């Protein structure tokens, strides 16, 4: 097997990772017991917790050593020895920016879309969700991953059920059950894998590194792969397991939608890379065409359906389906460019979707509606808000110079190397995303505003612009100068791709004139 | 013809079956209780028969426990029946179906 998971990466003197996971959770619990009638206290305490987490995340980003593929800042303590479960965390190029994303989006989501009622508990839930997401991204023990993965459901459930729109009950229930059903298969797969490992080695463990060494027959590997993937496919969501998302995004409060689409969707794609590719490289490789196809269908279908949405939040849901299709494509391309693009695109999608939802929230707060049809001409009344929305839309449709392009381009480049026709089909999504985004923009922002809009719609205020500023800055910065991120992602990607390739006895696709002359098939099959 | 132990066991089985069938076909709660008694006593007979076979006094002692339990069950059962059917005309089990599903 490959060199993907060195059993112990660089351990760190300070338990950064434990702290960054527990910090928001503890703050969340503290906020949860604060007096309910004083929202301001909760806001301040929650704000401190989130700020500290964000600072720590940034610190981790800087401490993170560029050019290394293994896990860094590893923490490993026995937790439940009887079950072979350990408090094992580490960060690598795959998880680094996702952690930063969570730490960044949580405060932005919360303070960008404040809830008027029961603020205290809402803040508490957001903090717990933040901790759970960070925990999921950093866990190197499958069990620990799973429980954090599941823990994310609870805050989300309550955020949707407690602060959502009129169909919030149904939405929360559907979201919860659908995801839980997927997780059920994950848990089953995990238990069976651990059981097989135990029968081979005699030790019960859920450690990712150890489990990756389990010998599996091909058919077992495929079954387990499908079990794991079921959970991730629902969470992402990958077509056709997405039907919970439009409802959940629509009914959820804005902050919840930001977290759902911006952060939690990444749990699915992250899981695909971290677990499916690591544990089941052969099955992943052989079943890649299936996932590539689903990814492409998602790209096209999501875009087509998004075009017909009359509701801004549903539109974002389907656009997410489309964008995450690209991520899936990149993951299962098994090229360095594709996977790097996929990982970068996870981050990008988080930023762009968050900004999109926040803007929708701002519009909704003013006009009381997120129906596209009831808007129109906003650009005349609120040009700055419209301008920011335009930047976000352009990032969404992959304009070069903005972040969305970098991810999509790398994904398509990487996919094209091995799976040419999937890339060609996926490129259709580039067209369609322009269609639905610009059409929606035209309907809501162009045209002459009616009296209702003129009287209700106000320009973005200072606080709102400050909340959006970091997102817009990142959209541009990543678009222009993505190298710092790519330098941190690529080494990990190299080792993952090498792991998959070596498990399948294939060599990476070659590029360049020389190889084209020497061998006709440019790598892979 | 010697009457071996198995005859008693078979008799016990017959009694038990009668009890079961009675429980299933009769509507009157009192009679249902009696059927349960019959089943318990069939067990007792079986116990005694096997005790005899094993030459073991333990089995016979067990019968006493069962008898006591049976008595207690009947006492409680009758008390409940009285309390619930005080307001009704007959002690018919089929009337007891306000809860279902």
């Amino acid at each position, binding site marked *: 097997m490959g060199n993907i998971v060195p059993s112990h990466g660089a351990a760190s003197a300070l338990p950064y990772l434990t702290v960054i996971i527990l910090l928001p959770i503890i703050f969340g619990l503290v906020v949860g017991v604060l007096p309910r009638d004083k929202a301001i206290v909760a806001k301040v305490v929650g704000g401190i917790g989130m700020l500290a987490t964000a600072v720590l995340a940034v610190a981790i980003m800087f401490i993170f050593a560029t050019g290394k593929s293994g896990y860094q800042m590893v923490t490993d303590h026995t937790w*439940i*020895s009887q*079950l072979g479960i350990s408090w094992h965390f580490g960060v690598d190029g795959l998880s680094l920016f996702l952690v930063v994303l969570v730490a960044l989006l949580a405060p932005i989501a919360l303070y960008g879309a404040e809830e*008027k*009622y029961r603020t205290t508990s809402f803040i508490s839930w957001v903090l717990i969700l933040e901790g759970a997401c960070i925990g999921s991204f950093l866990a190197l023990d499958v069990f620990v991953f799973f*429980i954090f993965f*599941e*823990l994310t*459901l609870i805050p989300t459930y*309550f955020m949707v059920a407690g602060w*959502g729109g*009129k169909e*919030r*009950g*149904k939405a*929360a*229930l559907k979201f919860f*059950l659908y995801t839980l*059903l997927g997780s*059920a*298969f994950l848990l*089953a797969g995990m*238990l*069976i894998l*651990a*059981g097989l490992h135990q029968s081979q080695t005699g030790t019960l463990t859920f450690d990712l590194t150890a489990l990756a060494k389990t010998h599996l027959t091909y058919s077992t590997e495929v079954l387990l792969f499908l079990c794991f993937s079921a959970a991730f496919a629902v969470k992402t969501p990958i077509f056709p397991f997405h039907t919970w998302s439009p409802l959940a995004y629509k009914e959820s409060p804005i902050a919840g939608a930001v977290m759902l689409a911006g952060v939690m969707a990444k749990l699915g794609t992250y899981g695909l890379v971290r677990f499916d590719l690591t544990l089941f490289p052969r099955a992943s490789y052989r079943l890649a065409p299936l996932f590539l196809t689903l990814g492409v269908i998602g790209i096209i279908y999501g875009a087509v359906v998004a075009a017909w949405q009359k509701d801004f939040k549903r539109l974002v849901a389907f656009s997410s389906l489309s964008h995450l299709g690209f991520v899936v494509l990149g993951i299962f391309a098994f090229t360095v460019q594709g996977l790097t693009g996929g990982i970068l695109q996870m981050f990008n999608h988080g930023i762009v979707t968050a900004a999109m939802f926040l803007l929708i929230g701002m519009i909704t707060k003013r006009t009381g509606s997120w129906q596209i049809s009831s808007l129109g001409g906003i650009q005349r009344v609120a040009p700055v808000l419209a301008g920011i929305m335009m930047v976000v839309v352009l990032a969404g449709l992959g304009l070069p110079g903005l972040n969305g392009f970098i991810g999509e381009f790398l994904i398509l480049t990487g996919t094209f190397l091995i799976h040419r026709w999937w890339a060609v089909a996926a490129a259709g999504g580039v067209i369609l995303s322009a269609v639905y985004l610009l059409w929606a923009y035209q309907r809501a922002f162009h045209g002459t505003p009616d009296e209702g809009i003129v009287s209700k719609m106000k320009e973005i205020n200072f606080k709102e612009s400050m909340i959006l500023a970091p997102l817009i800055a990142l959209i541009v910065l990543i678009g222009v100068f993505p190298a710092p991120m790519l330098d941190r992602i690529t080494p990990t990607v190299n080792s993952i791709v090498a792991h998959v390739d070596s498990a399948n006895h294939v060599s990476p696709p070659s590029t360049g004139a020389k190889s084209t002359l020497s061998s006709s098939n440019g790598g892979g099959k | 013809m010697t009457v071996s132990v198995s005859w008693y066991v078979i008799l*016990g089985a017959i009694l*038990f079956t009668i009890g079961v069938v009675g*429980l299933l076909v009769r509507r009157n*709660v009192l009679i*249902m*209780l009696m059927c*349960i008694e019959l*089943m318990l006593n*069939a*067990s007792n007979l*079986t*116990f005694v028969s*096997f*005790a*005899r076979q*094993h030459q*073991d*006094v333990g*089995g016979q002692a*067990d019968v006493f*426990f*069962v008898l006591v*339990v049976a008595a*207690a*069950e009947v006492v*409680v*059962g009758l008390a*409940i*029946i009285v309390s*619930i059917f005080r307001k009704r005309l007959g002690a018919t*089990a089929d009337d007891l*179906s306000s*809860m279902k*599903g």
Partner: protein
Amino acid sequence: MLATQTLTLPKISYWAIAPEAILVGGALLMLAMSATIRSKIDPAIFSIITFVTSLASIGAGVILYINVLKHGKYLAFDGALSVDGFGIIVGMAVGVAIAIFALGSEGFLSREGWDGPELLALGLLSGTGAELMAMANDLIMIFLALEILSIALYVLAGMDGRRTASGEAAIKYLILGGFSSAIFVYGIAFVYGTTGSTNLAQIAAFFATNLLAHDGLFLVGMTLILVGFAFKVAAVPFHVWSPDVYQGAPTPATSFMASVAKLGAFAALLRVFLSAFISYKQDWQPLVYGIAFASLLLGAFGGLVQNNVKRMLAYSSISHAGFILLGLVVGAELGAQRVVIYLVAYTFIVMGAFSVITVVGGKGDNNHDISNYRGLAREHPWLSGSLALFLMAQAGVPFTVGFVAKFGVLSALASSGGVGSYTLVIVALVSSVISAFYYLRIVVVTYSSPVGIGAIEPEPLVESTHVASELESSKMEELSMEYSALKVAIDYDIEEIERALDESPLEDPIGKVPLSSTIAISISAVATVALGVFPGILFALVSHATFLF
């Protein structure tokens, strides 16, 4: 004639039955008090006595446990009782259940105006039976303990004289319980007939040295015993009584059935099948597999269409029974340990949930329709929060002890290997997702707008299925039940609701939550979370929960 045999009286070890003796003592004390003291006694006093008694019983259990840890397990009463980690831990769990029951009942008793100590005294007695079952090492002993447990429960079920359903529940439980007891005893008779003993250790010893030429009778006996246990733990298809009885019985009694009765029955079931009948594992394992399979699925699907919360939890407990039986399917000691964890976990979750339900039940113990939970979160955030916690724990959400329990059982099952086990793992997990639907349905309702908001009455979630309704309405109920099946609350905008409620607050049918209930709920909630986060405690505890063979 039988040869004269001298009956040697067994040596009586009072320490071994100290936990049970304390419970009985407490019950007698209360009965004596109510018989002698003329003036009305505050239910709180009985409640405190029960609580203290159960704590004392737990304390005795702890001493026993430490003793066992030091000196090893031993048999008492001529082998009728086995004093070992397994029995003591389950016994302590029973003690915990009684303690929470005592706290939860206090509010109930004073609310309903029940003066006497009967509810609590019967609880203690029934608990005695459960603790004995956990330790019993002789089939007849188990039978006796089972009956002690059950007869008290029959009465508990029928205690609410004002509700017809209560009496009905009692009669149903009595007849069906008696029926299953008879089957159980008949099974014991056959086992006795083929092995010559009712003592588990002796039966095990018998099979260790003998091989039955014709094991037909034994197998019949074994199967009948399994039926008896399956009835008590409400496993499919012997569960038929449980929804009705759960619904009809007074809520504290229901909580008792769901927890204590199951604890005792499962403990005995495991002990019998894993010690005495272990040689016939090939024969009983498929049966248990089938029963577990059916229980998991029926428990999940059956709860979907229920609108009465107590009925819903009855189906939930059927599903849990399925899970616990998975531990038995595993067969080995590992399975037993995981079952003990499950039982302990389950005690907290189910007692907590029923404590909340008792409170919400309101005066008359009638408000158990799901519509009664509308808007609970607004008036009683902590109450609904705890309910959500307990329900999520039942669904097996991580960081609750419910997850630990399910995970433990399933990981044992998965490590036992084989396609059958893997299938069962997946079925179990899927069924827990299905049952999550009805748990969450309750949670969703607590977060929906309270009834009577604004000018328009919200569409009723269901036609209420009050137990006291007349027989003729049953057809109507059936229709409405189908109509409303799986429906979730239709709601209003949050801001509208908040505004409407600020203007005209609704009358709260629950009122102030009694302190005792708050304590009960808090204990359960803390345990649910704490053991969920630090499951190591549980695992360490049960590592000594082995049998004495």
